[in-house]
């Protein structure tokens, strides 16, 4: 398996504070990696370091073997789908959902060209995959948080990315939508072997295909290994600074805080 993301000794700032400190890690093609950790640990910053939107102070980030910098980064970003945590969209934003998904194609289409029938076909396929056809003619600002998340995922997939970065994709969703999106992430990963980096707070809901877990605390990587090893009471209790218990069921594990601990 070739390495698609190579992060070497990277320090990234967010405003005046350091949000990631001296991180080194590699992500192999086709991997589904989950990232977890307390608030402010640097999870979102890790994603923005990969797609070149974060401010790298030291070290280097290479994606597909090319260093992420300047104009090269803009080109590489066309192949990296990014679903940010939350967007604040004005209710009157003059844009329909269909355009918001097509926007994912804009980088690939390039300057001076309009979306081709092929672009429309890709968008249509993604719309069916995510199940948002009934939303297409709605103004983007009218959607609920969960619906906007689905549109954001559709936009990222419309890019036909080689890497998909998802920042808490199920945080605003109801239980059924959470399941739909997680199954979708699993399915896309299975079908396309799409390299996926997933920031997740819900450790009980990790996608089945997730084989690697990166845990961040205080801007540093404190664990990088298998999901089985990560879902350990001692590891997670240390990570979150409170007593956690892990209940194993036939469908997976449940991670919860110990009452009265």
């Amino acid at each position, binding site marked *: 398996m070739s390495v698609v993301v190579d992060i070497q000794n990277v320090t990234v700032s967010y405003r005046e504070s350091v949000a990631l400190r001296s991180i080194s890690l590699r992500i192999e093609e086709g991997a589904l990696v989950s990232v977890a950790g307390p608030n402010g640990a640097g999870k979102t910053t890790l994603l923005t370091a990969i797609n070149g939107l974060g401010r790298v102070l030291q070290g280097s980030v290479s994606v597909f073997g090319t260093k992420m910098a300047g104009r090269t980064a803009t080109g590489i*970003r066309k192949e990296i789908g990014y679903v940010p945590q939350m967007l604040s969209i004005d209710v009157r934003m*003059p844009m329909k959902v269909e355009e918001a998904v097509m926007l994912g194609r*804009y980088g690939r289409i390039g300057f001076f060209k309009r979306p081709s029938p092929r672009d429309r076909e890709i968008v249509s396929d993604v719309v069916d995959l995510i199940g948002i056809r009934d939303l297409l003619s709605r103004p983007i600002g009218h959607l609920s948080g969960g619906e906007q998340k689905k549109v954001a995922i559709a936009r990222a997939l419309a890019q036909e990315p080689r890497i998909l970065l998802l920042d808490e994709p199920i945080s605003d969703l109801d239980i059924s939508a959470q399941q739909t999106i997680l199954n979708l992430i699993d399915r896309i990963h299975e079908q396309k072997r799409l390299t996926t980096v997933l920031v997740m707070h819900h450790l009980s809901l990790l996608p089945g295909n997730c084989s690697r877990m990166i845990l961040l605390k205080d801007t540093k990587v404190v664990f990088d290994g298998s999901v089985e090893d990560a879902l350990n009471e001692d590891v997670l209790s240390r990570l979150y600074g409170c007593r956690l218990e892990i209940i194993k069921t036939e469908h997976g594990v449940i991670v919860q805080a110990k009452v009265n601990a």
Partner: protein
Amino acid sequence: MLELLQYQFMQNAVLASILGGVSCSIIGVFVVTMEIPFLGVSMSHSAFAGGILGLLLGIDPFAMALLFCLLSALLIGPVADKADFNPDMAVGIIFSIMLGLAFLFLAMIPGPKTEALSLIWGSILTVSRKDIVVMGIIAFIVMALLALFFKEIQAVIFDREIAASVGIPERPIYYGILFLSGAIIAANLNTIGGLLIFSLVINPAAAAYQLTYSLRNMFFLSGAFGVLSCFLGLFFSYIFNFPTGAVIIIVSSLIFFLCLIFSPKKRVKGVNIR
């Protein structure tokens, strides 16, 4: 009104109102959707400061106004990005600098300051053919760039971070939008005046914003409202013998309030209301 069109000054005024109305209301769409309402004020004061410096130094005031606007436009984006401000804050800073410079230059002009003050009020009835040509060229460039880069502009208006994440060079596009706004305002300073241009930027676009969820339609509607405001403004100012700029602004404000009252968006309830 029709017989008036045989006069060259009136032909010029009508041409200026079409060009000014269209171009100001087009950049109004940027200003309204990107929520930088005071961009117009800031730019018009930059143009004002530049125009006065031009008068002071004996250089063409229009060229200096354009230069100052473009300099401001070049500063606003990077100042906002570097200082991590909302762009409107950067606009405020540039505005205060330009206002300070304008008063400084004004004080330095010896004798009566009539010519300098005319930059504040403008006069659509004294527009020259040269002004029309410059306005026409700039309006054409803006519309051509809008057509060529529509999808990139649409992405940047939607969200700069998303635009960057899909591989659009959002920074040049964003700074370019500010730059074009500067050029348009400078080009229309003579006609509509530094103070009143603000309303012609904001009102037609804000009115269009009430009526549509399509950015393309918003550009068309805003342009139409801009031209309508200028036409009706010219007409009523002639009939009632009122200052043209002031009537244009009153008409554009009335159009806005009519659109607000009849807006289908008024019924929208729910998420993210600001």
